[in-house]
């Protein structure tokens, strides 16, 4: 579904990604872990080109999205993204947050977009918050709305950039539950996270990144129990 070849990214002289090769298959849940500054967020943000790769190629369903000619806005509609700091639109109600993109991009009628949005809010357990403004919501609720907003465009893959890192501990669970449900329904997901328990439980494959490279990858449980690379061992010893 997504193929990444020789992906490099530099800011000036500093190279953040030093050649990433990987593939993400349909229905797969890939979790990306690693120390801060390892390039895992940059990697994720290159996938929908919020960051412009310096070198290398990314293909989504055999279309090269790193191509300058590619229809970036079209491609992004197929890739939902959830951010660490939610980035809800504060000047709009929850429902308007969800319906803006479908109405403007898919030319969906107001009633249809609204109906879909309410359905999505129900799946994240917030059907009663449609008319609220984001500043009335808790962090966990905000992030669940953000997930629903991304789902409203019916993406084929969802990217999560540390979705629980900015949450108070008691709210992490509700967001992870929503993500777990998504995974069970067969959504293709790439998740950058520090939640090791979640990574082990929900991830099909784990990528450990350090210094701008994928140092080790495999089935999460296997990597956690028996890390091969010394840097993986070192990192896991600190966080587990």
């Amino acid at each position: 579904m997504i193929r990444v070849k020789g992906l490099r990214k530099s800011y000036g002289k500093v190279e953040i990604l030093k050649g990433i090769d990987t593939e993400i298959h349909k229905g797969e849940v890939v979790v990306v872990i690693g120390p801060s500054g390892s390039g895992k967020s940059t990697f994720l943000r290159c996938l929908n080109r919020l960051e412009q790769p310096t070198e290398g190629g990314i293909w989504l369903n055999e279309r090269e999205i790193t191509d300058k000619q590619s229809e970036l806005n079209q491609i992004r509609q197929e890739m939902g993204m959830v951010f660490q700091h939610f980035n809800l639109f504060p000047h709009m109600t929850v429902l308007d947050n969800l319906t803006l993109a479908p109405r403007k991009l898919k030319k969906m009628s107001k009633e249809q977009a609204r109906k879909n949005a309410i359905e999505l809010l129900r799946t994240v357990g917030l059907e009663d918050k449609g008319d609220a403004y984001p500043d009335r919501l808790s962090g966990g609720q905000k992030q669940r709305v953000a997930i629903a907003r991304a789902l409203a465009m019916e993406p084929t893959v969802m990217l999560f950039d540390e979705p629980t890192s900015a949450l108070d501990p008691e709210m992490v669970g509700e967001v992870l539950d929503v993500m777990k449900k998504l995974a069970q329904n067969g959504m293709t997901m790439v998740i950058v996270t520090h939640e090791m328990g979640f990574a082990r439980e929900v991830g099909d494959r784990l990528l450990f990144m350090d210094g701008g490279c994928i140092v080790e990858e495999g089935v999460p449980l296997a990597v956690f129990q028996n890390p091969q690379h010394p840097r993986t061992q070192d990192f896991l010893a600190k966080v587990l």
Partner: protein
Amino acid sequence: MDLNFGSMVDYWPTFLRGAWVTLELSFFGVALGTILGILFALMRISRWWPVKFLASAYIEIIRGTPMLVQIFIIHYGLTGFGINLPPFISGVVALTINSSAYMAEVFRAGIEAIDRGQTEAARSLGLSRWMALRYIVLPQAFRNMLPAIGNEFIIIIKDSSLISVIGIAELMYNARTVQSITFSPMEPLLVACALYFVMTFTLSRLLAVLERRLRS
């Protein structure tokens, strides 16, 4: 010295006519200046350096030179190039280019103050650069910019008095006319001041109401 406003009553229509022309000048200055200001602000944050350079140069030059000199250039200087603008048009042009330069900076700062995450979220949904600006960034920026925009409107009303030098019968010009007819040095100017203040104060109250509405 004694002030005698009694004789001013006879010239009330003159003052009101002048105030009306001041309002007309200011209205066009504000409206056109705002539109051009947004345009220059967008040019300034463009990714293409020639566009960016053009906007920056315009803003710096207009802000860095006196409006009085600009008025003379537009109205008298340009006649040397065969461009003869009617006084009112010259006045509107001078006000517009000035307000657009200042407004551009207000808009740029307002747009840049909105968290990058807002644009990123919009773009990640597939919205174009323009749509992200139109639906996400500008509505939020506008709320924050309202006090600065109001300030600019008030400055335009006051600066329009400079236009009197090219013979447009706006408030300041008519005040001086009354001065020369009545030989009263002070009273006409005080009346003009009062009328300017009524205009600016009304505007500032209206904007305060708008600001309160947008906040709630």
